[in-house]
């Protein structure tokens, strides 16, 4: 191997790529303009924010209020958990159809992936609105919204994980004469399990975050308290809700990180 030349450390961008970068910069600046970015408002907002903080502190710590908010928070977590579990379970078959080269022909992969893209494109709060119309106000609508949102997320990532799994074991099981479904169940899914668990935990974290605002549109959970607090200018109670959400969400992220290392950390 005499003429094997050393590859360059960095590839030089082509003229076309350079145009691409320039276009990206222009688009970003244009977006700032579109978003109404203004120095004036930047300067005037800290005092107004300080004013809000001033009126919101101290947060409402009345035991009766805390108890009511606590129960609402619990309902919120139940919505999140139930929705996430339903979504994760349903995502497995959906992902099997979405993963390229697994069991379904390419056109089905495309259709399912487009469907999942659509689910993700619609924000969770919009799904909640749809389900409030469909099944009425209350936590059930919220749970359905979380479930569908989770399918959009997990269906896509489970499928990507399965596509990325080492093809060796599948090939060897195919060589035994096994059916496609058996190969997927025996080789692809066990190999992908750590990624599944990790994705599922992320999905549950995401569900906990989403579930806290579903109440804004009447789909159950603590969000309704936030809305009422702001509508009635009861900023101390609204502040309690915000702090409560922050504590719960952050604790849940720690919990899920801990579970992740416990379940897959050492086994990977």
């Amino acid at each position: 191997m005499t003429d094997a030349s050393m590859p360059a450390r960095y590839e030089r961008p082509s003229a076309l790529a350079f145009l691409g970068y320039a276009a990206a910069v222009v688009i970003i600046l244009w977006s700032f303009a579109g978003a109404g970015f203004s120095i004036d408002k930047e300067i005037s907002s800290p005092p107004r924010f300080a004013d809000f903080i001033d009126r919101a502190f101290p947060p409402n710590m009345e035991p009766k209020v805390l108890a009511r908010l606590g129960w609402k928070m619990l309902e919120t977590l139940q919505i999140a958990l139930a929705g996430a579990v339903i979504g994760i379970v349903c995502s497995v078959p959906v992902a099997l159809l979405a993963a390229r080269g697994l069991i379904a022909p390419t056109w089905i992969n495309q259709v399912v992936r487009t469907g999942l893209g659509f689910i993700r494109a619609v924000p969770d709060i919009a799904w909640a609105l749809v389900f409030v119309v469909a099944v009425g106000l209350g936590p059930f609508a919220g749970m359905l919204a979380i479930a569908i949102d989770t399918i959009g997320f997990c269906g896509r990532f489970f499928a990507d994980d399965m596509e990325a799994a080492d093809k060796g074991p599948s090939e060897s099981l195919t060589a035994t004469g096994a059916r496609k479904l058996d190969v997927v169940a025996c080789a692809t899914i066990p190999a992908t399990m750590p990624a599944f668990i990790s994705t599922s935990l992320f999905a549950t974290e995401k569900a906990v975050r989403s579930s806290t605002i579903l109440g804004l549109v009447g789909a159950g959970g603590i969000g309704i308290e936030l809305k009422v607090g702001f509508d009635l200018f009861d900023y101390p109670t609204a502040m309690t809700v915000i702090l409560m959400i922050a504590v719960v969400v952050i604790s849940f992220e720690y919990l899920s990180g801990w579970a992740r290392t416990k379940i897959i950390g050492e086994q990977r």
Partner: protein
Amino acid sequence: MSARCIRTPGTHSSTISSVTNLTTETQVAPTRPQQTGAEVFAPVLPVDLRVTRLAKSFAGTLIFKNVSFGLSRGEAVAIVGANGTGKSTLLRCLMGLIPADAGAIDVLGTDVRGAKSSDLRAMRAQMGLVSQKHNLVPRLSVLSNVVQGLLGQSPGIRHWSQSFAPAASRAEAMAALTKVGLAHLASRRADRLSGGQSQRVAIARALVGQPKILIADEPTASLDPAAGEDVMDLFFDLARQEGVTVIFISHNIDHALRYGDRVLGLADGGMPLDARAKNLSAQDLRGLYD
């Protein structure tokens, strides 16, 4: 157990030169008399596998073309050749795991290139493959991996894991593990094995279905010399005593000549060597690697 002394002397009607032109005559697999001493000219055993003018390229790069050979039942064949000459690719084509570009492949009466997937599965269920990279399913136990070797014969959830498997299948899997000397590791996780151990599990998985054709891609590459001999002896006995057709790839010239009845050599995008092992010397094989 000495493999060399069980060798049947090659008595064949077809002549083979060490470098064959692949004409129609040489594609006909030499028939081998049975151990019991069948008559020399009796066309004894059926042909298990025939490859005709096979070609394969990846993304426009030719790997090999015009590869033709046939194997009869109970024959042990070594495939040799330098790295990247397409040995593993050839085996994948034989089992229909990847499509070939041209030519014909007939395995156990199945036209591999034209077969329906159900026919392909039926064919594969009668074969065993030991992959070069072992390809065990990580995170599952050794025993589950071996039980999965029966999926071709018994599809369905009962052979997904040793936990659901029928008693008979578990026993067969244990027997296969015993053959490769790993019964004591049956419940170990497959990704916690040493290289040689995982290779032997892969061999057990290929053997558990009692294949008619056993295909092994460098089955002794990860094994210590003694374990390597044991495995080759095991394959050789299968060929001799149970009439299993054994195809193995080896970079070990000694193994190729000792355990192969025939040696096929890949080089330069073709198969320039197809000869009886007894007519070959180590020197002939080394020539392939130049």
